[in-house]
């Protein structure tokens, strides 16, 4: 969003006593006006329609959050600077199952209420056209259980504000072979595509809700031998780079009879090399650094950050504040150079 895009509408100067002294910061007045705070009158012109982040009395519209004014046609709304993720239809998000319920899963997607994933909105083993039977209802936990991570798309928003998800596409589904982290959702910039293959044999999915999944880039063929990890080490949201799941444990190979069961498997690929693991954690810390510096997270920036992070041979040292700042600085400088 560009500063100049943000219009400032007739905003009477608040009847303050002596606040002007504090207002004399080094930043320009124009930027200052772009931000409104709760209770501030946005406009007293009745032509505006009142959108999110505002409330009104008679003709006057007030802001209810601290954020930027946005104007779309006649709709006036205030977009909060920070806040919980607000789901919108079509958003590509990452979520975690919190509850298995009657024909539905509840999924934590970081918004104010848990989203719902209906049994009918997932691809089940046995092909797309398969009918859902009662036995499917009974074995819902075999597909997805509490704590499982998945990526999905927001299908609709119910009128009570609860989001409904679906995973009826090959790119959606359960997540494996990687590591989860979350950043504030406002740092993720919406774009057409949210999953990228990064250098170093690592893929990333940037959920619009601020949940991010980093994993080993997989081959497109799914007909690989599946393995059972006897320790059944599940990767969780640990951001600790020293935590490398399942390393060196004994693996028993077993052929999965039905290939599509694979998409609900809990087992990690045993062939994740140590270098890939280290790359994943490096990306993890790069993204954390970007989030620390309040930088919007894009593919480009991640790659730039990755390159910048090569200065730190030890991945673990990147969690230092100084290191994070220097990575951010590098990214910003790099961007400036490119213009």
């Amino acid at each position, binding site marked *: 969003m560009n500063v100049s895009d943000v219009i400032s509408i007739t905003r009477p100067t608040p009847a303050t006593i002596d606040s002007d002294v504090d*207002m004399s*910061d080094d930043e320009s007045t124009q*930027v200052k006006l772009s931000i409104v705070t*709760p209770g501030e009158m946005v406009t007293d012109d009745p032509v505006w329609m009142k959108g999110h982040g505002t409330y009104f009395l008679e003709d006057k519209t007030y802001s*209810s959050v601290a954020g930027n004014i946005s104007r779309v046609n006649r709709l006036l709304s205030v977009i909060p600077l*920070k806040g919980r993720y607000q789901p919108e239809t079509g958003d590509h998000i990452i979520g975690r199952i919190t509850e298995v319920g009657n024909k539905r899963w509840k999924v934590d997607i970081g918004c104010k209420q*848990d989203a719902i994933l209906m049994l009918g909105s997932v691809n089940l083993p046995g092909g797309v056209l398969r009918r859902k039977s009662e036995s499917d209802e009974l074995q819902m936990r075999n597909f997805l259980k509490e704590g499982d991570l998945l990526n999905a798309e927001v299908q609709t928003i119910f009128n009570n504000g609860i989001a409904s998800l679906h995973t009826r596409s090959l790119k959606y589904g359960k997540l494996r072979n990687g590591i989860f982290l979350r950043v504030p959702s406002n740092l993720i910039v919406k774009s057409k595509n949210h999953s990228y293959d990064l250098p170093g044999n690592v893929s990333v999915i940037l959920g619009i809700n601020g949940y991010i999944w980093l994993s080993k880039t997989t081959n497109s063929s799914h007909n690989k031998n599946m393995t059972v990890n006897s320790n059944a080490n599940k990767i969780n949201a640990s951001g600790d780079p020293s935590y490398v799941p399942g390393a060196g444990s004994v693996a028993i190979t077993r052929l999965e009879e039905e290939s599509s069961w694979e998409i609900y498997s809990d087992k990690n690929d045993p062939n994740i090399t140590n270098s890939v693991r280290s790359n994943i954690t490096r990306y993890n810390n790069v993204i954390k650094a970007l989030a620390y510096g309040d930088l919007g997270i894009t593919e480009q920036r991640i790659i730039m950050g990755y390159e910048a992070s090569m200065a730190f041979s030890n991945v673990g040292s990147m969690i230092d504040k100084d290191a994070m700042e220097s990575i951010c600085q590098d990214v910003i400088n790099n961007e400036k150079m490119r213009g």
Partner: protein
Amino acid sequence: MVQGPMEPSLRSQANTTEATIEVNVNVANFSTFERKKRTRTEKRIVELKATLEKTFEQSVMCNLYPRTVIQVDIHVLAQDGGLLAGMTNAMTLALIDAGIAMYDYVSSVSAGLHDQTPLLDLNSLEENDMSAITIGVVGKSEKLALLMLEDKMPLDQLESVLAIAIAGSHRIQDLMDTELRRQGNIRASKMTQS
């Protein structure tokens, strides 16, 4: 003084029409000069908690968040007077920072009366010595959302103390506002640099 609450987290469940505001007050043992064990169930703390919950129920637009809980954790790390005022201001800022819709700021300040002179924002020595009133003002109005006076004060002096306290609250609000804008601008500028 008061360390801002940990980020308020919204959780599903609870009231069907409005959000429930849940405040947890945690007063650190080392927050005062003498180290004293304080429990969450202490009457004074329960009172503060209830006061904050009821105050903010009015100024947060709870109807926008049905079936949710807004949980606010307040950790008091050090106290030197104006405990309630500090908690109120910190909570206002934290709620705004979390992007929760509010009608207006709630700004709060304590004021006391020394002899005939009204004083603003007392420290704990002053608080022990004279009667203090804590008020919470909504926005830039003269409307009091919160009011707490625990010691004697001549009725006829009330008006003058209130006047200075309200002015003080407005000033606090300006400070909060300025800081919010500063933070917001920094963030906005970073976001737009791409």
